[in-house]
């Protein structure tokens, strides 16, 4: 016997952990025969129903059709009976399997037969419905073409746009049918409906004065245009804004429809619907259980085995895809080598890089604060200027009204450029660089809306010098402050739309013409535009967050958003087809989808904050809107609960009290710790099983070698 230092025999080596390991051996030699005859191989083959007829017949065993069918019948007891189409074989084999399945069922009971036939007819009906409804899918053909020519990364952007159109449409239907429709019905007296006004009690009359400038009398034509663009004048008194919904209840024959409650509940309903729909969509694309800590999007197996988009039909697109795959693989391999170099950095290099990063982050924070402060100042200026306006009809006044939107758009345009320059000094890995820049841009976009709203509130609740004494808010400047906030959101949305159209018309197309026809070096270095998916998606998310926040103050905003995204789809499609060159660095569909949905979820959660503050904290305006007779908008709910029967009231008050919430929190914490412990135990088990599999495989190969040797030398 050799000592522990030597390997176990000829052809064996020691691996890093000291175990004997077979040297690499080319396949096609003797071991393959044995491997195919192993019981595990045979049962796997039988279970999947695959045949080996089309393979070179080294393997004589489970090859014939009859064998496959018979073996299936043996296995049938072990698992749920799958339908014939789930077998991996050609059509003829599937027929045989289906016939044998049917032959079997002849022996089963009546009830089994009935269950089987009803299952089958149900499946058939469902597939018919699915086939028909696929025609109803919006833009199916367009998106299919885009996928064929540009790959799944860009196609995911357009699917996302389609999802936005649908989401906003459903939100609009929800809010319209529960809030706007009853109001309109009662105002025009359809179905013999009447309105119930309750005069607000304990309110100083001074708080209820509200005279929107309705443009009665002779006005210039451009006043209408200005009103359309800024939501004032004739638009302010329409159902577009909060101020229109002045009524307290609608009485249709005998039923009393509580409009304030409906308004608030419709708001919660569309927020909850959006949240649940987004969650469902993000989980759909991400059904992996992350037993391993590795990032599933960045794994090499994902890039190689799922690398090629089989739906590409255009040879040019295929060529580009080849190139981008090559580039991506080479970059990733390079990054890995870089990681090793980074791990070998000296202490002083690390110190230098970390201090540089801290410094640059300080610069980034400074830039962000600069942007936010300018947004705040501009909003305050614009509000003050529009409230004491002498020349209410001039172009300058319109510009001042749009100043917050202009500043936000400029900030969102310039800051990302600065970020992408700064991040090069921070010496991160390329993939991390992209993510970091994206994160900063997302934060800028969403926080600028927050800053705008915060500055609006600081104006509305500006209570120095007793400005808001009787009413709780600055009633002189803002008799109907919800309509004002609604107007700001409306302006943001309109301006966003105008910017998208203007950029397409005045930047994208001229750039394409310039690069195609002008051969100056500078112009050629600028080059054709790439379709930047992340920037476009951030645009959408920004618009959608505005819509979510704004719908409470302006119930018809989802309709405007639907129309806006509908038009934006066609604009972006034309820009893509006519001006863009495909991106050098590919974007993967699944990674992008998940990223879009996560950022959209963040936007939605961020939208909860301003809405929460408006509904629960700031007193509702007493001059307009459905919540005149309440202190804050939220008070509708406690008031309604007080009308319920006593038992139900007690339950509801019990559930929302601290005595219930604290134990619930403690129980949830315990459950969470239990689940974390379970997860850790599972991870450990999986590691152990993997090690065991490796050992078993080594044993198997060892035994096979021994048998082969023994066969050769009898």
């Amino acid at each position: 016997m050799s000592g522990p230092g030597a390997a176990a025999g000829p052809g064996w080596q020691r691996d890093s952990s000291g175990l004997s390991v077979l040297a690499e051996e080319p396949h096609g030699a003797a071991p393959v025969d044995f491997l195919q005859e192993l019981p595990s191989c045979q049962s796997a083959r039988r279970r999947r129903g695959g045949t080996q007829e089309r393979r070179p017949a080294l393997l004589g065993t489970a090859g014939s059709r009859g064998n496959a069918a018979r073996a299936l019948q043996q296995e049938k007891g072990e698992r749920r009976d799958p339908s014939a189409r789930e077998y991996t074989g050609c059509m003829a084999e599937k027929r045989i399997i289906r016939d044998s399945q049917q032959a079997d069922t002849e022996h089963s009971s009546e009830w089994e037969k009935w269950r089987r036939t009803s299952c089958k007819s149900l499946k058939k009906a469902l597939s018919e419905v699915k086939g028909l409804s696929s025609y109803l899918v919006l833009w199916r053909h367009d998106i299919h073409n885009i996928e064929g020519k540009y790959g799944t990364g860009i196609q995911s952007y357009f699917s996302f746009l389609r999802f936005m159109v649908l989401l906003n449409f459903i939100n609009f239907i929800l809010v319209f049918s529960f809030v706007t429709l009853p109001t309109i019905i009662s105002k025009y007296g359809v179905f013999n409906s009447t309105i119930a006004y309750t005069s607000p009690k304990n309110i100083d009359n001074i708080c209820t004065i509200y005279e929107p400038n309705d443009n009665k009398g002779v006005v210039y034509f451009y006043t209408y245009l200005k009103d359309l663009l800024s939501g004032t004048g004739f638009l302010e008194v329409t159902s577009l804004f909060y101020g229109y919904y002045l009524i307290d209840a609608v009485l249709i024959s005998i039923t009393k429809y509580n409009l304030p409650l409906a308004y608030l509940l419709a708001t919660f309903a569309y927020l909850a619907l959006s949240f649940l729909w987004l969650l469902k969509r993000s989980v759909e694309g991400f059904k992996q259980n992350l037993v391993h800590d590795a990032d599933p999007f960045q794994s090499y197996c994902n890039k190689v085995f799922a690398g090629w988009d089989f739906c590409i039909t255009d040879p040019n697109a295929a060529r580009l895809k080849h190139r981008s795959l090559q580039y991506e693989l080479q970059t990733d391999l390079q990054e890995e080598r870089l990681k090793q170099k980074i791990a070998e950095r000296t202490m002083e290099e690390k110190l230098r890089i970390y201090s540089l990063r801290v410094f640059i982050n300080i610069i980034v924070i400074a830039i962000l604060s600069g942007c936010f402060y300018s947004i705040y100042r501009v909003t305050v200026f614009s509000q003050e200027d529009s409230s004491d306006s002498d020349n209410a009809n001039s172009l300058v006044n319109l510009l001042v009204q749009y100043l917050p939107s202009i500043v936000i758009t400029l900030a969102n345009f310039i800051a990302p450029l600065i970020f992408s320059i700064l991040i090069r000094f921070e010496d991160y890995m390329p993939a991390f660089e992209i993510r970091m820049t994206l994160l900063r841009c997302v934060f800028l976009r969403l926080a600028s809306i927050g800053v705008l709203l915060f500055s609006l509130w600081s104006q509305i609740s500006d209570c120095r010098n007793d400005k808001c004494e009787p009413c709780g808010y600055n009633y002189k400047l803002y008799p109907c402050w919800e309509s004002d906030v609604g107007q700001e959101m409306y302006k943001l949305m309109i301006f966003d739309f105008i910017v998208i159209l203007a950029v397409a018309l005045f930047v994208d197309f001229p750039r394409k013409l310039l690069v195609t026809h002008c051969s100056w070096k500078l112009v050629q270095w600028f080059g054709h535009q790439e379709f930047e998916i992340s920037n476009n998606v951030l645009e959408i998310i920004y618009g959608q967050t505005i819509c979510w926040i704004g719908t409470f103050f302006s119930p018809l905003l989802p309709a405007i958003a639907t129309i806006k995204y509908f038009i934006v789809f066609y604009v972006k499609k034309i820009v893509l087809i006519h001006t863009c060159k495909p991106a050098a660095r590919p974007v993967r569909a699944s990674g992008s989808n998940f990223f879009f949905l996560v950022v959209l979820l963040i936007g939605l959660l961020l939208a909860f904050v301003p809405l929460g503050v408006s509904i629960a904290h700031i007193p509702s305006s007493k001059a307009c809107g459905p919540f005149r007779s309440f202190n804050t908008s939220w008070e509708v709910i406690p008031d309604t609960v007080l009308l319920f029967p006593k038992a139900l009231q007690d339950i509801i008050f019990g559930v929302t009290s601290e005595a219930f919430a604290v134990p619930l929190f403690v129980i949830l914490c315990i459950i969470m710790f239990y689940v974390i412990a379970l997860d850790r135990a599972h991870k450990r088990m999986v590691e152990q099983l993997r090690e065991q599999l490796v050992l078993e495989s080594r044993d198997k190969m060892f035994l096979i070698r021994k048998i082969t040797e023994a066969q050769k030398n009898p």
Partner: protein
Amino acid sequence: MGGSASLIPRDLLGEYQELTFLSKQEILLAYKRFSELLPKDERENGWSARVPKSQILTLPELRANPFQHRICRVFSTSDTRDDSMSFEDFLDMLSVFSDSATSDIKSHYAFRIFDFDEDGTLDRKDLEQLVNCLTGQGEESRLSSEEMEQLIQNILEESDIDKDGTINLSEFQHVVSRSPDFASSFKIVL
């Protein structure tokens, strides 16, 4: 549309719906595209004729695909091994690549397509050929040998559970089930 519906008998259509993952409209569209590949005189009996490989590769869905030869080889049931496809083979192919096919079936066929030497496992040579298919056919589009070595090492590290240097079907299915892109990329819709 109505014309091609009358060329496939109703019970055959129902059988195809039962045995594949395609809907009725998809089967009819497939029939229409398949019969366009046949010469005019053979179009009457579309479902019993075989289309030679060169014709199949003129389909736009396949002509830009680097795995076109493997796809024809895997799905063809021709006895003469000339990779010609009948209509049923064509339907089988579309069924596996359709949206509603289960991920089990897709991964099984993906394994067979990637197994270039058809020995039942993906070894280093198969992986090397696979990566070369992905990056393109020219000389300058291939990875260098060190890069290829590094890449194959990484792939085997991630997917070879029993560390025998090859990827068998179960390991492949396991690693592909955790790949988020697979379902959306392994798809052909006419």
